[in-house]
């Protein structure tokens, strides 16, 4: 029983990180209409920038602060230069995100990759406390707090602010929103700026556990996609529930049935969800009037 509880707690912690990446996927999908496969590698690349600043002697928190500013700028650049829809439709934009995914990995190898992987210091305290024989790490508890703040903030933005409502309008009815004066490209730029910052946050939380290297985000990206499907591609809060489900399930499968089945179990959960609830656990059906 003690093992199972420990695995569940570990799975929740892992699931929250998966959920955060899924959150960005869904956020960009809701606001720009495109699922961006490159978000993981955007975070990886930004984390390398922080690492280089820290390695050159800057304190970790100042490096992270500068990294956050750079990430906002980087997110804007990614949208304006690579992804801004010049035409070609959603399929064209989706392919561009895949190309960006590959390009960022290659650039990381070229600029930073000589001695990878690198040990990356944790921004969160180590250690933890035991509750009922189960170790609760301080880093995991703080991650829960971070997630709550992010979710609350974004849900409030979408519900109660003009910018948030405009985000939703552009995502659901881009042409109508433009006709009503909503500046879609400005909103998409803001979305990518926020996404860039969130991607760096994930990188800073993940790199101490995974080590920093150019493929750091790849295993998480697949799980994040599954989490987004399970939670619902239209529900921001649902991504974290989906992440926790995927995290706990894969860790339990790895513990009791073998680690070979980890990815298969995540994909099986995704397929089961699509079969039973095609819009995910918390997603809503998108209705189009013909």
């Amino acid at each position, binding site marked *: 029983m003690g093992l199972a509880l420990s695995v569940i707690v570990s799975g929740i912690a892992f699931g929250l990180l998966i959920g955060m990446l899924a959150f960005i996927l869904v956020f960009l999908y809701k606001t720009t209409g495109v699922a961006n496969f490159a978000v993981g590698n955007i975070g990886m690349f930004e984390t390398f920038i922080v690492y280089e600043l820290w390695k050159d002697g800057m304190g970790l928190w100042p490096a992270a602060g500068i990294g956050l500013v750079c990430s906002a700028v980087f997110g804007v650049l990614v949208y304006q230069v690579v992804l801004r829809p010049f035409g070609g439709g959603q399929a064209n934009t989706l392919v561009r995100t895949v190309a960006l995914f590959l390009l960022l990995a290659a650039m990381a190898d070229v600029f930073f*990759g000589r001695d990878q992987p690198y*040990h990356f210091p944790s921004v969160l305290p180590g250690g933890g406390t035991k509750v009922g024989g189960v170790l609760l790490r301080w880093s995991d508890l703080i991650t829960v707090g971070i997630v709550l703040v992010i979710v609350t903030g974004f849900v409030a933005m979408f519900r109660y602010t003009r910018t948030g409502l405009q985000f939703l309008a552009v995502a659901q009815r881009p042409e109508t929103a433009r006709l009503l004066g909503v500046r879609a490209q400005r909103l998409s730029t803001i979305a990518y700026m926020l996404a860039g910052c969130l991607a760096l946050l994930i990188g800073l939380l993940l790199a101490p556990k995974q080590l920093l290297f150019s493929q750091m985000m790849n295993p998480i990206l697949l799980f994040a996609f599954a989490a987004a499907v399970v939670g619902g591609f239209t529900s921001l809060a649902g991504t974290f529930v989906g992440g926790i489900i995927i995290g706990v399930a894969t860790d339990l499968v790895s513990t009791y049935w073998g680690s070979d089945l*980890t990815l298969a179990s995540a994909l099986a959960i995704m397929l089961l969800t699509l079969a039973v609830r095609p819009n995910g656990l918390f997603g809503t059906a998108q209705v189009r009037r013909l």
Partner: protein
Amino acid sequence: MARRHSGRVGSRLAASAHERSGTRRGVLAAVVAAAALVLSACGGSGSGSGSSASGDITLGISVPLSGAVGSSCAPMNKAMLAWFDHVNAQGGINGHKIKVDNRDDGYDAARAVTNTKAFIAEKVAAVTGQCGSLQPPAQLPLLNAAKIPFMYVFGASTTLLKPLSPMYFNLMPTYGSQLVAEIPWVFQQHGPGTVALMSTVTPDSPTTAKQVEAAVKQAGGTFVGDYTAPPGTADFSPQVLKMKQKHPDYVVLDQIPQDAARLTQAMTDNGFAPNKFLVGSSAVSQQTFLAGVSAALQPKLLVASDTIAPASAEGTDCVTVLNAAKIKVEGVTLRGCGTAQVVESVLKAAKQPVSSQSVVAAMESMAQVKASEIYPPVSFSATNHVGVSDLYVFGVKNGAFYQAGSIGG
């Protein structure tokens, strides 16, 4: 009558003569071409001739300079080339320069095959300097057929050694062999105990697991479990939590370096360490692995290696050459330089002019030859194609590997 037809006959005769002369030219061209083919084939004994017309000794190197393991293998390659340049600057091998055809295969078997075909066409004396376990199984059949020796791959695989392949020669024992040799040594030094094995799933891992279990039992220990994970596993917490329940004295690592580093990170996150030591093979004897291990776990590392620790290499010719070439002195570059030293020793011992046959013959008659400052003495024979049997054991002090002992010798 003959006169009446003389024009047509004449032209037919002329045409016939023209045809015969054209036919003769064609036959002559074919004979010349055939002769050229025969003469070029006679340049070697049907396989790598090894020495060019200028007397240079040609070697082929196909190695990942890019791709997934490029960052680990490229420095090794640079170090090898630096040593060969040093040898050439000293006059070469018995007056003959070493010429290297150095190609990137990007850790891709298909590209390695393309490179190997080019080496065969060039009739190199030997192919060496490969790094990785994906490419050699694709290269070896071609080199066996061409009778060109494949020397000293970094990344040993059991499948290439059993059954014995006539052209495949390795310096490094397989990771399983290293662990099997290391376990009794560790038990002797620190007492027998309970052992858990953590493996990256590879084609060799089931064999290694059986070998390690048998070695543990034979040395008086207790094998408490084999835990596996596919390469690139994101979360090692399940495996760590299961191991933690067993409270093992030793955890043996049969993993790729990145996974091993992530495992140790998960061990630290979950507050777990073996009671005595973490035991690894040369797969984790690199500084890049050590940099990912927490300071709390580093003193518990014992790692076998077929090369000396960087700290022990000061004052060697390899360090001098690497420094002169502005190459960082670390485990992987010392391995590259040391491997090049062994190649040099073999080429010097080979009958002149150097050919693939003379290289193979030279290797198979090596017995306890100290061919390199970096490796222990090397022995090959017609029935043994793994050169190193003695191993060094590294511990960790102040964030760097040092030589804690040796096995064999």
